[in-house]
Structures are given as C-alpha cells and as structure tokens.
C-alpha cells in the first residue's frame, strides 16, 4: 500500500496535478487578492490553523491507507516436502483455513494439471502444512525435489469432479 501511494504521488500524473493546482492557486491569488496589502496577525494565525488542521486530516487518511493490508496471493508454491508423511509446507496465507480441501496443480508450459488433492493439515504462526489425501500419479517417484516443488501451485480451489475422490469425512480409512 505504501508503494502504491508513493507511486501515485511521484508519477507523471501526480506531478501534473501538483503543478496544475499550484498554478490555479497562484492565478486566483493574483486575480482577486492584493498581494502588497498587509494582513493582521489574527487572520494569519487563522489561516495557518485551518491549513494545519487540513494537513493533519490528510496525513491521517494517508496513514490509514498505508496500514491497509494487501490481499494475500490466491496460491502458494510449496518450499518443502516431507516425504514420510506426505506433507507440503507453504508460507502462511489467510486464504488457507484449517481443514479445507485444496488442489495441488502441476504447472507445465502454462497448463495446469491437478496432481494432488490435499487438506490444510495444520496452520502454524508462519507456515502451513498441507497433507496429501489423493495422488493422481503425476509424480510417480513420490519423492519431490526442490525443482519439482517449484512447478507446483497450491490453491484453495478444487474441481467438483475431483471431490468425488474423497471418502466420508470424519472417519479416516485405514
């Protein structure tokens, strides 16, 4: 969000707006106000007060916008695979809630193929464990290398036809 605000201000559009606003204000001042006239301190303090209040309100709005959270990415790439328990480890992402079914898609030349059906096994403070429940056999060796992991995207979206692979929930079949 901070980047977006900074980009907005320090862009060609932002610069044009600032130049335009400055020109407009100076034109107004020179047209209607006698710049050689002396003003009372009372009016000067009043104007300073109004301007500082306005600036404070704007600063508050900017601060609020800066603290606005960026939405989490819609997918995660696993960075670790635990072969013994069939668990992928991904970074924490608010789209992945505990126990939801997720799809692990193999990316090959821009084509997505469903490689595994999995569930969110455990949400930790900084990482999430994804446990494989159904293997569609795209990686027959079973042991996934770090290069293989880079080709997998895990998304909390699963085709409805793939859901038929799941058994009755609540009871784990041996």
């Amino acid at each position, binding site marked *: 969000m901070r980047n977006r605000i900074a980009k907005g201000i320090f862009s060609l559009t932002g610069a044009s707006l600032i130049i335009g606003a400055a020109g407009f204000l100076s034109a107004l001042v020179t047209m209607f106000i006698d710049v050689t006239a002396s003003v009372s301190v009372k009016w000067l303090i009043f104007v300073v007060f109004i301007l500082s209040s306005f600036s404070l309100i704007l600063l508050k709005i900017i601060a609020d916008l800066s603290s606005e959270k960026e939405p989490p990415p819609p997918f995660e790439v696993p960075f670790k695979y635990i072969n013994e328990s069939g668990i992928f480890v991904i970074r924490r992402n608010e789209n992945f809630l505990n126990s939801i079914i997720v799809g692990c898609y193999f990316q090959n030349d821009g084509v997505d193929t469903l490689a595994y059906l999995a569930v969110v096994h*455990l949400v*930790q403070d*900084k*990482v999430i*464990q994804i446990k494989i429940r159904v293997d569609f056999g795209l990686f027959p060796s079973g042991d996934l290398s770090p290069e293989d992991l880079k080709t997998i995207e895990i998304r909390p979206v699963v085709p409805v036809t793939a859901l038929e692979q799941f058994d009755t929930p*609540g*009871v*784990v079949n041996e």
Partner: protein
Amino acid sequence: MSERYFAKVVRVLNSTTAVIDAGEDSGVKLGDKFLLIGLGELIVDPDTQEELERLEIVRGKAQVTHVQSRIATLQSYEYVRTGDVKEIKKVTSRGVGIANFLGPQDTVTESISPGKERLKDLIDLSVGDFAIRI
C-alpha cells in the same frame, strides 16, 4: 511456554490416552478438545534464509475425559475404520423327490460385515509434546 501451546504432555498412559499439565485451575473443562503436537525440524525460508519456526508434527486430536485441579486426562476422539468384508458362500445341494430331477441346486449367500471402528492412535506421542486448544 508460548501462548500457542496451552499445556505440555506429562504422561502417556497408552496409545490413545495421555495426561497434560493443565487442569481446572487453568480453565480446562470436561470435553475440551486439544491438538497434540511435537516439535520437529526448524523451517528456513529458502528465498530469504529467514528462520521461520519449528515444524509442528501432529500426534492427534484428543478430548478431556477427566479433569483434576492441575492435570487433565485426554483421550483420542478420532476414529479409524477398517474396510468392509464381503463374503460370498456357494453351497451346492441335491434336492429330494421331484426336486432331484432338476439337478443340483446352488445356494449363494452373500454377506457384508461392516468394518470395525476404533479410536485412532496418538501417533508417536511422548512426554514433552504440546497441547494446543482447538
């Protein structure tokens, strides 16, 4: 102990039952559910090399079955089911009287015994593992 870990496993009674070091004094009530975990290897972010946290290895889910003032007994509440058994029996018998003319009679009996359910074990649970309230 971090806030995430509510209590520690102090005794493992059997494969489905354990005791934690929190009881009524800590607000534990009968029927409360806990996730039992052990701590595994330290996970490091491969891009930033930042040490993230230790991997939590799930031992199982358990429910409070007995509460004392400073300890509580937990039992696994998940079930595993063995597969259904389908049995087909074929009995060939000769009829008597008129039925004998019709030749031997086959009787086929098909029965399905439903799989048995039992409590799921708390896998590799050991003293020092942690309980997270769920």
